[in-house]
Every structure is written in C-alpha cells, then in structure tokens.
C-alpha cells in the first residue's frame, strides 16, 4: 500500500530522524557543553554548536579523580556479573527445561524478587551489614546486594534463550553416554552463549550505573563509583557545568559505544524476556 508512494517513505524517514534527534537532544547537549569553554557555556543566548572547542578531558580526569571513580564502577560491575552468571545460568537452564509445579513456584518467586526497589531494600541490608561487619568491605557489600537485585532479570532473560534451543541435541548427548552435567556444560551453554553474553553485558551496563547501594554503603571516597562522584559534583551549589558534562561524557561514552555496537542483540534479548 505504501510502496505506491515512494515519496511518503522518504518523508517518514525524515520525520523519524527528527524524532530520534529530538529525543537524543540531552545526549547531544552533554557533548556540546563538554566541548565549550566556560565563557561560552554561560552565554545568553546559548550556542548550539561549540564555536571555540576546548577539550577538558585530561584536566577533569585529574581534578575530579574520574579514574578512581570509574575503576570502582568497573570493579563493582564486573563482580556483579561474575556472581550473577555463576549463580543464574544453571537456574535459568533448569527453569527452561523442567516443567513442574515446583518450577512454577520458583519462577514466580524469581519474578517477584525482580521488582523490589533498591531504595527500599537498602535499609535492612545496611543494618544487617553493620551487624555482621560487612561494612568493612564496602565494595564487596555493594556487589553482593547488586547481584541479588539483577539476578532475577538475568535468570528470566537467559531462560528465554535456553527455551529456544531444541532439547533433542541434549537428548542425543545423553544417549551417547554424557551425564546431564556434561550435556549442560558442553551442549546447552555453548549453544546459548550469545544470549548469555548479551544478557551479561546488559547486567554489566546496569551495574555500571548503580547508585543507591554504593551511596549508602560506601563512605570512603576512594571506593566510591562514578555515579556517587557525579552526584557530589551536581549537588554543589556553584556548578562547573562544563566540568560535570565532561565527567558525564567520559563516563557514558564507552557505554553508548557498547550499546550502538550491540543494539540489535540487546533489543531482541530484552523483548524476548520481558514478555515471555
């Protein structure tokens, strides 16, 4: 119907590009501000293109100790992913393969655990950590709590991947004398590796932006992640907006590159899990 009118297709494309541009304006504005010198940032009317581009990356990196913050973010995110992949993959596999009342109960519990807000769970976690002395290892504490927060999402998404793998392959392996453990490790996991990898990256990106637990559990700024560092900057009254935007740009550019590279896989992984 639409093919009749080639023009319409191009008009729609133009409208679509405008919509995307309008939506992504805040991201564009971050990069533009980061490139402006201070004088231009506070010019009225604002300029929509940096006239005298000025790279402050190196200066901001040192002044706001961005390196230390980002290193902590990466440590927390990697630790979380390691925990979640180790604990969740097997559970997702069993939930995809075994059908029973018990498995329905488990799936229900997992889905329920997915919705608990971190800002409400942090109070009991903080008190319990204080009692058992886990506050002395604050980053480990954050990793443990964050892993519990994202484990259900990982299980749900990876389970969807496992259900797409034909079970005949594993059955053939069992007939050939493999154990179930062998069939899981050497047949199912390798076949599901793409889904596992994409989900792990999704969990990694989410944990890279974790804030509530880190803010509440880590008091020593040497162990704080980039979100907490950014919050302290934004919270100050005299705001160095070029510096803040440079900080934000340094922090999120790798995330955005990772996202654009894996866009298709992330979108399909996300949609398969959330509604099935």
């Amino acid at each position, binding site marked *: 119907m639409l093919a009749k009118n080639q023009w319409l297709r191009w008009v729609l494309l133009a409208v679509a590009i405008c919509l995307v541009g309008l939506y992504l304006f*805040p991201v564009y504005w971050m990069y533009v501000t980061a490139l402006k010198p201070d004088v231009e940032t506070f010019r009225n009317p604002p300029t929509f293109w940096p006239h005298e581009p000025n790279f402050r990356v190196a200066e901001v990196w040192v002044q706001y100790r961005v390196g230390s913050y980002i290193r902590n973010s990466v440590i927390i995110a990697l630790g979380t992913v390691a925990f979640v992949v180790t604990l969740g993959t097997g559970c997702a596999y069993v939930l995809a393969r075994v059908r029973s009342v018990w498995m329905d109960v488990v799936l229900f519990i997992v889905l329920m655990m997915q919705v608990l*807000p971190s800002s409400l769970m942090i109070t009991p976690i903080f008190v319990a950590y204080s*009692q058992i002395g886990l506050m002395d290892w604050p980053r480990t504490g954050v990793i443990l709590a964050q892993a519990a927060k994202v484990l259900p999402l990982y299980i749900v998404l990876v389970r969807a991947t496992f259900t797409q793998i034909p079970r005949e392959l594993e059955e053939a392996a069992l007939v050939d004398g493999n154990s179930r453990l062998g069939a899981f490790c050497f047949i199912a996991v390798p076949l599901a590796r793409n889904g596992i990898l994409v989900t792990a990256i999704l969990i990694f990106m989410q944990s890279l932006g974790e804030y509530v637990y880190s803010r509440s559990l880590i008091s020593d700024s040497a162990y704080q992640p980039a979100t907490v560092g950014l919050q302290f900057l934004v919270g100050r009254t005299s705001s160095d907006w070029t510096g803040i935007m440079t900080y934000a740009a340094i922090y999120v550019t790798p995330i955005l590159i990772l996202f654009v590279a894996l866009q298709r896989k992330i979108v399909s992984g996300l949609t398969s899990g959330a509604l099935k």
Partner: protein
Amino acid sequence: MLRFNRVFRDGGGFDSTLVMLALGYLVVFSAFPLVYNLVMSFQNVDLFTLASFDRPFVGFDNYKAVIGDPAFVPILQNTALFVALSVFLQLSIGFALALFFQLEFPGASWLRGLFLAGWVLPGLVAGALWGWILAGDFGVLNHVLQQLGLSSGKIFWLSDPEVSLYSIIIANVWLGIPFNMILLSVGLAAIPDDVYEAAALDGASRLHRFLTITLPLMRAQLGAVISLGVIFTLQQFDLFAALTQGGPSNSSNVLQYWAWQMSFQEYRIGNGSVISVLMILFVVFVAYFYIRSTRNEHAG
C-alpha cells in the same frame, strides 16, 4: 557414593542443586532483608542500637510516627501524581512512537533501536543532563520556551516548589519512553497484517481499525507495560538524588526517596523501615498483576 553421583549428575538432584544455588542466594540477599525490614519496622532502631541484636520492640509506634508526620500526606500525594503522570505520559508517547515506527520506511527498526540509548544511560547521568537543561539561569529549556513565546520569564524548574516535581516527571518520562515503545512494538508486530487488510477492505477507517483491532489485541501487552511502568517508576531514585533531593521543602519528595532520607540522613531507621514495608507491599501487589498478565498471554 556411586548412587549419590548418579542422582546428582543425572537425576532430580542435578536440577535442584542448580535451582537452589540461585534461589538460596535470593533468599539470603532479598527475602531475608524483606523479613528483617518488617521486624525493624516494629523496633526502635537508631545509630546507638544499629549494631546490636537486642533492640527494644515498640509495637506500632513507628507506624504512628510515620503516618502522623505532617509530611506524610503531601509526600503520598506527590508519589501518586509522580507515578500516574509518568506512567500515562510514557505510555502514550511510547505507544504513539511504536505505531509510527511500525510504518514501512527505510531504517525504521534501526532508528527505533536508537531510542534505547536513553535507556542505557545510568539514571544519575540522565539526572545530571536534565539538571543542566532545566537550570534556571542558563538552562537551554528556558531559552527555547522563551524563544517560542511559551513562557515570559525564567522558570526555576528545580527550586520552585510549584514545578519541582514536574521537572522530575519530565526526566523520568524521558527515561521511560524507550522501554515502553520497544515492548509495545513487539506486541504490534505480532498482530498479523491480514487482519488489518480484511478490515480495510470492509471500509474501516484508520481510527476505527485502531480502536477495534489494535487496542483489543494489545490488551495483555498494555497491561504488562503499565504494570512494569508503575514498578519502574516506584524504583526511581537516582533522578531525585541528582535533581532536587526531594526539595525544596519536600515539594518534590516521594515515598521511596523519603524512606532513604529517614534511614540515611535522619537515622530514624525504624521509621524508614515502615515506609519501605508499606511501599514494598504495594509494589508486590502490582507485580502480581504484571505476572498474571504475562501468564495469560502465554496461555493464549
């Protein structure tokens, strides 16, 4: 030993071990805090009794203190407005975009995916970006509004108690649009084309087709997306931390941020637990509807 090996490697033991590994972890780090939270809501917990295992029970005193607090009712109203407006706007804008990107043109699905770039940003970064856009004196939004003639003076988005909550809603809607749009797109793509073609042959208008075909067929999806929207909106914390810290004078405060302030700024941890208990009950109630709506879709 041989028998143990066989059960573990080939029988039900294998399944249970794998499930118990994850479930045990969730019990320790999610279910236990839930129960502990409930216990603390009946105890007197402050900085002095924090690390002790023997805290005095105070009955419903914490509940009375929270509900009797003069800030409670305004914050409850803020929370309701925050959730209702955010979910409504996310859903309607997301649905409109999903319908638009369903049309046939080059690059439609790739461009649609680009919207998720907003979703992958850490909430705190999104908050910082919006804080700069909404800034009263040098913010670009005020400039654009004045150029378009939509406002005469500068709006102090973050420090004016009349609008501070709305600025957080704007940022939250921005964050939530991609997720709504992508999930609804999946539902739209699942509706077979011939249904529409048959209706078009019968002379049904576009609007008529939308109301009689699209909406009814999307009912399960819409239910799931609305429940998820409510859940995610109630989880929103980072934007409050980055934009207004609940202020000025609680005008943009919501329950989930208030709970955190109670525990970590005022050290009234027992009171913080009370708010958490009440909120978690509500979230679990909504989650039940979400799970039910996805189940129905699965069966049908």
